[in-house]
């Protein structure tokens, strides 16, 4: 565990955080697309029935 300290600092380096956040945003966008599909389906169903 003690030996892993340098690697920890490696994972949590400052320059990596924008990339991490970018990844998080990408995931949210993917989810939003799924939501949009579901909403479209609801609108369609409202029209059909």
């Amino acid at each position: 565990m003690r030996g892993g300290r340098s690697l920890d600092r490696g994972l949590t380096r400052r320059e990596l955080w924008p990339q991490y956040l970018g990844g998080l945003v990408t995931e949210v966008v993917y989810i939003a697309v799924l939501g949009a599909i579901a909403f479209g389906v609801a609108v369609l169903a409202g029209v059909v029935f």
Partner: protein
Amino acid sequence: MLLRPRREDHLVIGKYTGKIVIGIGFLMVVPLLTSIAFGEWDTVVDFVISISLCMAFGYGTQAVCRTDRDLGWSHGLVVASSSWLVATAIGAMPHWLSGHMGSYLDAMFDVMSGYTTTGLYLMQDLDHIAHGLNMWRHLLTYAGGQGIVVIALTFLFKGAAGAYTVYVGEGKDERLLPNVVQTARAIWLVSLLWLAVGALALAITGLALGQEPVRAVLHGLWVYMGAWSTGGFAPQSYNTFYYHSLAYELIAIVVMIAGSFNFALHWAVWTGKRREVVRNIETLSFAVTLSLTVLVATFALARAGVYSDAMVLFRKVFYQLVSGHTTTGFSTIYARAWVTQWGPIGLMVTTIAMAIGASACSTGGGIKGIRMGVISRAFMQDVRRMVSPERAMVTAKYHHLRDQLLDDSLVRTTMTITIAYLSLYGLMAVIGTLYGYDFLEAAYEGVSAASNTGLSCGVTAPTMPDALKVLYIIAMWLGRLEFMSVFALGGYAFAMVRGRR
């Protein structure tokens, strides 16, 4: 054929199971501090008792099980499954001591449900429980989702070579980084950043919705934990229906789906491979099956006229189906409303979504997206082979972090586990029906338990027969650990009796 385990084997398993129980004891310090902060003195005593029990058992096993041997492959699997059992028995102490459980079995049901991130519960008068106990409930799902073993790896195993086998035994088999301890740290990094963003978003929304500050923060944290771990416990008996808010529901949806992703996928997307989110077989499979189940449910409910307009329809259907498909178990409708409003088609479609479940190596349960993807590709390949065998000699591929071969041995192991899940689902449905429940409801609830979802249509109740409670506990355990480590435990026990010396 099977070798009888020797004393050394028992010692290794005892030692590492003990370490995990010590970890549970440390975990209980959080609810202990919570109860102290709110002056819930009787609950404080409950946790002192429980922590002491954990430490007595944990350090006792360390003192007794002295061995230098490292964890071998079979040890790891056995430790994974046995530690979950021991953790359930001991973790149930605070629940039982609170007086809100009908029996110790009920308490163990709730704790197994927590660790396996199922979310079914038997706790009574939830709306009057202590903050400390609520903290314990939610921490259980959070720890269970991360993997009790992942937690232990992070703090307690100190680089044991066999630690990897325990990690696999818990149903996670992706190596994010070369070393399993580093992998555990990467998992924590992803989890904690999401925690910071998600819990804050929920807490702020709660405040804006008229919650008192302390409650907004506690609920924000707890609902986040329930969503990320795809656990489904919520602080009130009304579950997430309590908030009556589109904003709260949308944030919960985002966290539920993110929590259902493979940790290796998170890591890939977070370290530059953003396109992975659309190329990955699991995210593709999830998108397809979620959209299909949403389509059927939406049309069925629109036809039945239960919900008045597109927005209402979207809010109810998407939320419930995301909750089911990610195997979370949050709901914004009453349990009986699944029967009285959603009806047979709604129940059936949601059951299918729950059965398929989330991604592999995530906090979620079910058959898993990767298996659905592999099976559908293998099926198409077989159809092609039958239709034009000369043209179908090339082995198919699929993309999961990198292009991988769809070879026969992979398809075989995929089918084996899938059949195990389907058999378990079927068994749950049949046994529930034998106990007098409506078949669809028994199937829905049984799949909910075995896929670790936690949505309930009313079958789960304190008045449920004890045998059914035991069956559900076993199903939750089997489902979460993906069968293998439980089979290993069974094999170990068998070998103790019948193995060759």
